[in-house]
C-alpha cells in the first residue's frame, strides 16, 4: 500500500512537470520544468529498481541536457524580451 502511494505521488509529480513543459510559453521556464521532470523520472526509475538507469538519467538529465537546452535557448534569442513564442 505504501509503495503504491509513493509511486502514485511521484507519477503525479512527473505528469505535472510534463504538463508544465507543455504549458509554459517561456522557454527558460520550460527548461527548468524539464530539469524537474528529469529528477522525478530518475526517482521513478529508482523505485522501479533500476539504479543503473537512474544514474544515467541523473548524469545526463540533470547536467548535460539542461546545459544543452540552455545553450540552444541562448543561441536562439535576440533580446531578453523575445523569449516568448
Amino acid at each position, binding site marked *: 500500500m505504501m509503495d503504491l502511494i509513493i509511486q502514485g505521488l511521484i507519477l503525479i509529480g512527473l505528469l505535472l512537470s510534463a504538463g508544465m513543459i507543455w504549458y509554459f510559453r517561456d522557454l527558460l521556464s520550460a527548461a527548468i520544468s524539464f530539469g524537474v521532470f528529469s529528477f522525478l523520472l530518475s526517482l521513478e526509475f529508482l523505485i522501479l529498481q533500476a*539504479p*543503473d538507469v*537512474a*544514474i*544515467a538519467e541523473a*548524469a*545526463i538529465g540533470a*547536467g*548535460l541536457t539542461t*546545459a*544543452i537546452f540552455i*545553450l*540552444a535557448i*541562448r*543561441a536562439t534569442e535576440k533580446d531578453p524580451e523575445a523569449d516568448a513564442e
Partner: protein
Amino acid sequence: MNMSNLVRTGAGLLMPFVLVFGFYIVIHGHLTPGGGFQGGAVIATAFVLLIVAHSRETIRERISLGFLKNTETLGLMLFIVTALIALAAGIAFFGNWLVNTGSLFGTPVAFGINPGDLNTGGVIPIMNIAVGLEVLGAMSVIILAMLSVVRGDA
C-alpha cells in the same frame, strides 16, 4: 561577464572530486550500479562545470578540443578492438575472452551474493573504460561545439 570568483574557486575544488567519482563509477561498473556511460557522463560533467564557471578565453586556452576528440576516438577504437580480439581467440565477435582465465580481470568470480572483487569481469571492465573515454570525449565536444556557436556572434 562571467561567474563570480567564488563559483570559480568552488568549481575548481569540486572538479577532482567529480573526476574521482566518475572514474570510480567507470571502474566499478561490473560491481555497483554504473558503468561506462554513466561514469563518462559524470566525467564530462566535470569539464562542463569548468566550462560554465570560466570565461571563453580561459577555456579555449586550457581545454584542448583535439585532446577530447582523440580521447573519443581512442575509446571507440579500444572498444571495437577488444571485441575483435575475440575473433582471434576463436570465439564469436564480442565474446568474453578474458573471463576466468586468471590473468588481468580474470579472477574467477565468487558466486552468489557477495561484495565482489575489482579484478573480475573479463572484458567488461576494459569495455567500461573504453565506453567511458568515448562518452567523456563525445559529451565535452558536444558542449564545446555548441558553446562556440553561442558565443560566436549570436
